[in-house]
Structures are given as C-alpha cells and as structure tokens.
C-alpha cells in the first residue's frame, strides 16, 4: 500500500510541477489573486456609507430632540452630526448648497431634506419633534412626568423583511461559492482530460503502464491537476476572504466560515464525481483535439447542475426542484452549497446529499478506472464507450 501511494505521489508531483511551471497557469493564478483582492478593495474604496448625515438647526436645537435623534440613530447604526445654521440664509438655500443634508426650521414646523437622502434620518427627526411637543402638551394636560414617559415608550410593532434566504448576505456568498465551484470543477475537469489525452496520444501512458497500475496513473493525474486548481481557487478566495473578514462585511462570520468549509468539502466531492468521468472519457480519444467532443456529456451535466444551482438553488431554495437536485448526484455538489447558504436546509438533507455523492463517486471511479485502463491502450482510432466496456 505504501508503494501504491509512493508511486501515485510521483505521478501527482510531476503533474503539479509541469502544470505550475507553465506560464499560462502562473498568469491566470496571478490574475485570480488580483481579482480576489479587487472584489474587496474596490467597493470599500468607492463606498459612500462612511459620511455622517449632517443635520442643521437654527439656534440651539432643543437638547431633548438632539438626545432622541442621537439615541435612535445610534441604535439603527446611522451616524449623524449636528450643524448650527446661519440665521440669515433660508434652510432651503443651505440644504441646496450642500452645507447640510437635513435642516430643521426655527419654529420646528418644517424639515428640509436634500432630495435622494435616505428617509430614515428625517423621519427620526420628525418623530423627535412630535415626541417633544406631545410631551409638552401632555404635561399641560396635567399628566405626571412618569405618565408622559410611559406614553412615549409605546412602540410600533417591529417590521421584519423576509426573502427566499434567511440572510441575503450569506445567500450571496453561497451564490458566489456556486459560481466558483462550477468554474473550478470545469477548469480542473478539462485540465485532467487534456493531461490524460496528451499522455495517451503521445504513448507515454503505454510506457507508464509498464511501471504503474492504471489506478495510480489515474489518481495521481487527477490529484495533481486538482491541487493546481485548488491553489488557483485559494489565490482568488484567500484575499477575498481575508478582506471580507477584516472589513467585517458579513454580519454572521461564523455561519460564513462553516459555509466556506462546506464549499471546500463539496469541491473535493465534486472533483471525485466529475474528474474521474472526465479522465475516463478522455482516455478514449485518438487525437488531443477530440477531447472537447468526447467529454461533452460530462460538461453538459456540469453546466446543467450549475444552471439549476443558480436558478432553483438560489431563487427557491425550499422548492421541490432545489430540494431534490440538491440531494441527488450529479447535481448535488453544485446545488447543495448554494441552497445551504439560504440557512433553511435541514442538516439531514446535507448529510444525505454528501453520502449519496460519495457513493456515486465510488461507482463512477470504479467505472472510470475500467474505461481508462482499456481506453489508454486501445489505439488506432477513437473508441466508443460501449466498445471499451464490452471488451473483456
């Protein structure tokens, strides 16, 4: 068993060395790292949420209005700053000239707002003014200070917005994980197919098979190319992930971390399921140029899984289509990670999907190694799958 791994490691190491020495691989990896960085850096450079909303008052704004607005804005995570306006100029003029975003008229009968401003701050300001004047009236009507405070603490019901996912931010990350998984599986699958076809067509495979078992050559090649793919994925994901964590862009970092760990697991499971199939089909070619056409069936399944993942998996995670395709292979490795990020998937479905994918992978790997071993040595013309399965 040790020698099986030792020789498989030689095959894997060679594939990684040759692949990583290629200029194209280095350029693509570098670009991915830059894109990963840009995903985080560019929005925070363009971000406009840093400026506080400036509220202008003429004369000293009443302390209780200021206190109420500051308190409510604080709890809603909105930054405000207070500006004392010029008595001579009208509030309209000063808002129009951009001195402030919101202005409160001297007699508190008017709130002037810059057009396009988020309505939250003017609303808070209006509530504070109304609250203050109501309190004064209630005190005039003879209510005690406690009674006035009690009345003012009556609150409107909390409003809760509901989308297809529990947390839209997390669902978006899930969606991006789906896209990344699809691209990574496709790139690695085609990379494996090309490596196998190259080894077959220049008859290296024939020489290698005198020293190695087909399973060693198959597994070594798949692992080598997959590792290169994983490095590229990491080149993109690491800067993006670090940037997201540092800038605190995700409210629920714990769940996001679990999602990323699951995404890596699904990447490995997806590789098991898809790349062995890619390798087996590529072993049927006679010329390297036939790789694309011969691997079309697997690519089509992968594309279809991706389409289901980004439509049903993201759009209707609790629908029948998403539920079934996320549990059953071959769609599960792409649909489940996207659907999982909705936060609405029971754990048993995740576990079932993983178990079924592992079982399917074992079956595919077994079939693939038979096709691969026979396809590699059958030369002279392109072979059909049926013919390879029938012989022997």
């Amino acid at each position, binding site marked *: 068993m040790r020698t099986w791994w030792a*020789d498989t490691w*030689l095959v894997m190491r*060679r594939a990684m*060395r*040759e692949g990583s*020495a*290629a200029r194209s691989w280095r350029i693509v990896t570098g670009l991915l790292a830059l894109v990963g960085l840009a995903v985080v850096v560019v929005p925070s450079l363009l971000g406009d949420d840093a400026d506080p909303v400036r509220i202008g008052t003429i004369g000293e704004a009443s302390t209780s209005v200021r206190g109420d607005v500051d308190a409510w804005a604080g709890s809603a995570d909105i930054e405000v700053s207070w500006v004392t306006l010029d008595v001579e100029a009208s509030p309209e003029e000063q808002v129009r000239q951009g001195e402030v975003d919101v202005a409160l008229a001297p007699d508190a009968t008017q709130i002037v707002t810059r057009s396009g401003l988020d309505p939250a701050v003017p609303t808070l300001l209006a509530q504070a003014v109304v609250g203050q004047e109501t309190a004064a009236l209630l005190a005039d009507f003879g209510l005690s200070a406690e009674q006035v405070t009690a009345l003012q603490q009556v609150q409107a019901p909390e409003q809760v917005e509901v989308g297809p996912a529990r947390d839209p931010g997390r669902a978006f990350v899930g969606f991006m994980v789906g896209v990344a998984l699809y691209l990574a599986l496709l790139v690695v699958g085609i990379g494996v197919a090309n490596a196998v076809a190259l080894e077959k067509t*220049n*008859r*290296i495979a*024939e*020489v*290698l*098979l*005198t*020293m*190695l*078992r087909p399973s060693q050559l198959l597994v070594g090649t798949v692992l080598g190319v997959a590792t290169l793919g994983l490095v590229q994925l990491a080149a993109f994901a690491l800067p993006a992930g670090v940037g997201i964590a540092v800038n605190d862009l995700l409210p629920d970092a714990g769940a996001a971390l679990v999602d990323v760990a699951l995404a890596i697991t699904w990447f490995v499971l997806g590789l098991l399921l898809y790349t062995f199939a890619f390798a087996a089909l590529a072993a049927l070619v006679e010329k390297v140029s036939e790789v694309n056409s011969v691997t079309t069936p697997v690519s089509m399944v992968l594309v279809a899984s991706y389409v289901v993942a980004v439509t049903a998996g993201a759009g209707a995670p609790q629908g029948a289509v998403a539920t079934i395709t996320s549990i059953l292979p071959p769609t599960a490795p792409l649909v489940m990670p996207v659907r999982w990020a909705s936060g609405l998937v029971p754990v048993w479905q995740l576990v079932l999907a993983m178990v079924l994918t592992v079982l399917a992978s074992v079956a595919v790997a077994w079939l693939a190694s038979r096709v691969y071993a026979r396809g590699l*040595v059958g030369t002279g013309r392109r072979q059909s799958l049926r*013919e390879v399965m029938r*012989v*022997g």
Partner: protein
Amino acid sequence: MLGLQNVTHRFGDRTALDDVDVVVRPGRLTGLLGPNGAGKTTLMRIAVGVLQPDAGSITFGGQPVTAQMRRAWGYMAQERGLYPAMPVGEQLVHFARLHGLPPQDAERRARVVLTELGLGERWKERTERLSGGQQQRLQLATALVHDPRVIVLDEPFNGLDPVGVAELADHLQARTRAGAIVVVSSHQLDLVQDLCDEIVMIDQGRSVLSGSVTDLRASVGTRRLRLSFARTPDPDWVTLLPGAQVVESHADAIRLALDGEVDPLAVLDAARGVAPVVDFGLELPSLSEVFMTAVGRGADTPVEEVTV
C-alpha cells in the same frame, strides 16, 4: 531467459496474434520482424504487460512474470513517449524514480545515461526543443536509465538517419554483450539483419520463422550472385543458364538466385562472355527474401512492396 508461450490475442473479431512463441536469451540480441500490421507491437505490449493475452503465458527464467518484475524492465514504445514541456534531466529522473530507483541513484544514473547518449549538456533543456533524433535518444534513455536486465524496444530505428541507426545498434549490442536480454522489433528486415543474432518473423499474427540469422539465411538453399557490367549486356543470356533466376535487374547490374548445385564461377564465366564484369559478389539471401520465401510470396517479388 524471457519466454512468450502460445500467445493469442484478439481485438473483437480480429485475431491479432495466433499461438505465437518467442524465446529471448541473454547475450543474443533478438529481432521481432515482420511487415506493418503483422502483430509485433501487440506482442511487445503483451510482453511488457500493457495488454493481457487471451491465451498463453509470459515467463522469465521459467517463472510467470509479475508487475514487480516488469517495473525493472526497460520499454520503449513505438511513438515518442515523452513529456514535451519537461526539462530533459527532470524527465529522466522521473522515469528512473518510476522504475524504482531512490532519488540520489535516479539523478546519478540519469546523468550517466545522458552523457552516454550524447545529451549530457542538455540537462536543463525543455524536451520539445531537442531535435527528433535527440528526442529518440532521450526516449531510449528513459528505457535504459535504471540499467534493466530486460530491454524491449518497439521499432527503435524508425526515423533515425544511418548514423543514428549505427549508434543505436552499437549501444544495443554492448548491452547484449553485457548480459542483458534485448528484443527489438522492426519492419525494416534488411536493416536489422546485421544487428540481430536471433530473429522471430511474424506475419498476419503468426510466427512464420525463427532462429539464428545466419542459419535462416543459409537454410533457404539458394545464394545470390551480384554482377555489375561495364556496359548493358543482351538480357537473353541469363535465360540460357540452368538453375539461375533473376531477382533484381537494372541496366548494368543484376542479382541472380542460384540453386544449390549451380557453380557460381561457371555463371561468372558465362557473364564475362557477354560483357566485361566490373564488380561481383556472392551473398546469402537477405532477410526480406527469406521472409518472402517463408510466407510463399516468392523470392522474385520486389522487396519494397512488402517492407513498407
């Protein structure tokens, strides 16, 4: 001793090999000969374990051959089995490791073999930058880097110029004299007749002849008399000679097949009577003539038609 006994192999309905026997002894360079499509490559692939025979066995020293034993052999496939983008030295070390050498030995042996084959300066060069002949030598190096006891080479002379053929022949004969078991295949019968000690001829999946090259060439029972004239003689003179047939005829040169009882000197005298003879020689039949006789296509068939 490497033995292939009663090997039969079918591709679907087509029988590629039909009950073929081959024995390769240490110290006797053995050629597997026959026209293209005869089944040589299939037989070699079975010997090295790439294909499984439908019937028959492969033995080494009387024992069935195992995958572990084969790993220590050297095999060179017909096409160029190299990684084009890999540097020469790294490539050779990789193959040495796969043949089971530990890392230090792999590198040391790789340098020795590359120097032997005249590629010592090319250690860091990408393989695809080598010339065709150099790549052929590198491929040979991948089969020899671990100093194998059994060397199996499929059409090693393909694409080599005469100098390359001579160098490879010297190299293989040296290995054979050192005690290795060497078997090469070729469709160029006359090219290897001076190289091989033993041959097995294959035609349409069957073994048609085997034995030592000298014995086989003598066993046909005829000899060849080659004559070159100073001027083109009247072509009719040959027809008057009993026991002599024309094998090849050009304007001023001719090759005659002489039956066993014919005196070559009498034929030479007759030739001198029709035109001045400037060169002559008495030879055994070439291997391709032996092959043609054996498969019943007749010694008069032009050689080129079958040894494509």
